[in-house]
């Protein structure tokens, strides 16, 4: 199964400055014009989707006052314009009408910042972080990258206004407090139909001034995914490599609750977090009863996780019991719980009703074994970073009969 990347190369001409552009077809341009963008936009923000055939048929289209042109195939004939234009994509599927792309002069790389209709779109806030989790998939960098704020504010304007899920993450997005608050307020104003999910370690929320700030925004569809790795400070602080983090995150969670925020607790499953997983579930239920969802997530074998393989790796088969105890503890008490990122062949059939296909389309992978598997259409599969070292001894294709046992127990 092919995964859809978020970037590809084009041949790019006449680009003098970095640009964020909304790809738009001629039909859309005629019918909707600038209204195709959720927020305020100018014609210069539009990139007209112009296959060779249309251009050759109507060369006058090149005089439209748009920001540039995208030829989604190898260029045929001459391109009679000094305006920016892109052609000959390396992978023609990556950029599609409706998407918002970023391009910079002197670089053939086209990055898709917004993909129309996808629920995995992300506002990336920063590479900086105040923790250094052992399994961090995107190791933080100590740089000033405030420019992300401006870019995201622009990006919001250029998105479709449709109902979709939109993520905000980093790094640690709360490090740019004012920028984040501005973005959340803008999401509410410009993208009221999109539900927003922010990933944060929650530590900075220990500052109670966030309560008023978030209450003032009062976004109706905003939720926070906050990781908690243990029911005690020693273990949690070790996983996130930050003394005091446990206390800060807990106070942060209470402040979020005071601001009436929707909160999800996220636990990455590894050798350090699984031994007390049932106790952690107990802790969450007893101390954080306002939590709306608990996500128990298989580890992504990338970034720092690779470096800390010895300390982190545990075969999911070896924590099945712990996982099952935790899941049913929560489920029986009415707390919604999900299992993310774990292939179906690695969890017992009776847990399959909690398993979600959680891996974003652009980084999802199915290995050779999966090709003949009856479960492949329902399975989360693997991260594209998957390697043999991180492969459970239990990965095996499920026969139709075996999979129907999963399907039965999901009812």
């Amino acid at each position, binding site marked *: 199964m092919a995964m859809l990347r978020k970037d590809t190369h084009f041949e790019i001409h006449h680009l003098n400055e970095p640009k964020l552009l909304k790809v738009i077809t001629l039909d859309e341009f005629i019918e909707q014009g600038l209204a195709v963008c959720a927020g305020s936009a100018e014609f210069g923000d539009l990139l007209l989707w112009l296959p060779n055939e249309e251009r050759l048929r109507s060369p006058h289209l090149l005089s439209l006052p748009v920001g540039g042109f995208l030829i989604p195939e190898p260029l045929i004939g001459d391109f009679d314009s000094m305006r920016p234009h892109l052609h000959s994509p390396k992978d023609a599927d990556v950029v599609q009408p409706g998407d918002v792309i970023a391009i910079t002069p002197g670089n053939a790389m086209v990055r898709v910042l917004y993909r129309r209709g996808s629920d995995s779109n992300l506002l990336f806030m920063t590479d900086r972080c105040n923790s250094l989790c052992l399994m961090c998939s995107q190791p933080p960098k100590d740089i000033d990258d405030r420019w992300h704020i401006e870019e995201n504010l622009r990006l919001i304007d250029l998105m479709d206004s449709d109902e979709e899920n939109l993520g905000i993450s980093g790094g640690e997005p709360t490090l740019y407090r004012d920028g984040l608050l501005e973005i959340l307020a803008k999401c509410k104003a410009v993208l009221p139909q999109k539900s927003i999910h922010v990933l944060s370690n929650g530590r900075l929320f220990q500052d109670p001034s966030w309560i008023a700030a978030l209450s003032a925004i009062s976004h109706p569809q905003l939720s926070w995914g906050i990781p908690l790795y243990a029911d*005690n400070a*020693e273990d949690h602080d070790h996983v996130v490599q930050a003394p005091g983090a446990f206390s800060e995150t807990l106070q942060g969670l209470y402040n979020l609750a005071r601001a009436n925020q929707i909160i999800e607790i996220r636990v990455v499953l590894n050798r350090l977090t699984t031994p*007390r997983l*049932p*106790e952690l*579930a107990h802790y969450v*239920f007893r*101390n954080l009863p306002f939590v709306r969802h608990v996500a128990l997530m298989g580890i992504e074998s990338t970034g720092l996780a690779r470096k800390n393989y010895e300390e982190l790796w545990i075969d999911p088969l070896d924590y099945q019991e712990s996982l099952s*105890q935790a899941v049913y503890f*929560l489920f029986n008490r009415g707390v919604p719980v999900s299992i993310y990122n774990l292939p179906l062949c690695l969890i017992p059939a009776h847990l399959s009703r909690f398993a979600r296909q959680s891996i974003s389309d652009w980084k999802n992978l199915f290995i050779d074994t999966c090709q003949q598997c009856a479960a492949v259409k329902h399975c989360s599969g693997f991260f594209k970073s998957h390697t043999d070292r991180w492969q459970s001894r239990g990965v095996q294709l499920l026969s139709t009969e075996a999979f129907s046992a999963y399907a039965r127990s999901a009812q």
Partner: protein
Amino acid sequence: MWDFAVTLIATDAKHYRLLPFRFMRMNTGHDRDILLTSDTGEYMHVNDAQLRALSYFDVQASTHFYKDLLARHFIYEPGRHDPFPEMAAQYRSRKDFLFQGPALHLFVVTLRCNHTCQYCQVSRAPLGGSGHDLSEADAQAAVDRLFESNAPALTVEFQGGEPLLAFERVRQIVEWVVDRNVVEQRDIQFVITTTLHHLTEEILDFAEQNRIQFSTSLDGPAPLHNANRPTPSRDSYERTVKGIQWVRERLGHDAVSALTTLTSRSLEQPEAIIDEYVNQSFSSISLRPLSPYGFATKSAHRLDYPIERYLAFYKKALAYLLHINQQGVYLSESYTSLLLKNILTPFSSGYVDLRSPAGAGTAALVYNYDGYVYPSDEARMLLEMGEDGLRLGTVQQPLSELLGSTVMNALLASGVAEALPGCSDCALVPYCGADPVEHYARQADPIGHRVFSSFCKKNMGLLKHIFGLLCDGDDNVQRVLLSWLNRRSYNDVRFPGYRG
């Protein structure tokens, strides 16, 4: 130098500090016989050696036991993590009911009744009796009191006597409440507590329009029910069952629930009573002991029973319920479900009798037919027995005045279980409640002595039994109890999960 060394050693040895906790031996006969509970309702079963290690600061850091103690706020590590925000949150969850004024409002619209139940001689009047009905002016004032409470969800319950004998007053009150609620916008539930003997099409029509629930009494199979509830025609059971069917036909299966009165006779037949509830396809049964209030002294001896007999009955009944639930029948025992909520969740059931501070007056108010307001139904019955000490005032006084009354002050002063002699040291106090009215009735003292308290014997007996089941019961027993906790089917609770 020497002093310094000692201090160092002392701090080192005490790498943790104790947080307030209570403990109790459960007499289960197995190793982990001691129940540890925190103020906020966390609990652990431990053995003698563990309790000793805990109190001598001898628990080894980094062990599972140590982490369990930390995570459940039995101990904390100064300088590492301050658990007070979590403990505060737990307190808040458990005492959440304090943020609301009275939510349950009982309207005693008449004392008249067609029954001559032995245990209820004093809180009813004969069918044709006069001067036993709530007046229109008092009813109107009661509706004002109802809306003075800040509770967002209100239950308006009609009681008697037999409230259907005063249906016109019921209708009036419902209509006033519905009218007022156009502006008030509360979540209101109407309940009529009735034998269902006096149902009419007209009453059912009205109930349908206003989504009124019925709560009836069903004591068991016909012989038991009719013996408990004499009527001139000796057909109380038949008429009630007919009423149940009629309500269900018109308003849906769940529009009627039933309560059981357990007389001395009932205690001999737990299975028969439960089977009757299964036959009538109820999903919950309430096996509460008889309260002492309604008795005339004469019949008290015949009907009252020692609480030990009730506890033996309860255990048999519960075992039978656990058994049939595993066969696919859903029938929960309601008091057990409330206690399960108190034990297994950070919340309180909020049930009037299981609150501390006590629920009388703070959770419920009774508007008596004579225009006086009482903190509970039991307090009202005390009056009918000749005690007049427990009324809060008249229905014409504003709610703030009623809740600020001397009686209310006295009840609250003896209504905080955590501060009552006996309860303050009891490991079960986070899950129990305070009932000053019952103690006043039985011991003529709202505080009372726990050793002679049937309230205490009952709750301690039930709580210990339930803790025993939660600790030692097999997976299927856990599944039934968990299915009651969230009103899910037994099959939906496929695995009990971590026992906590």
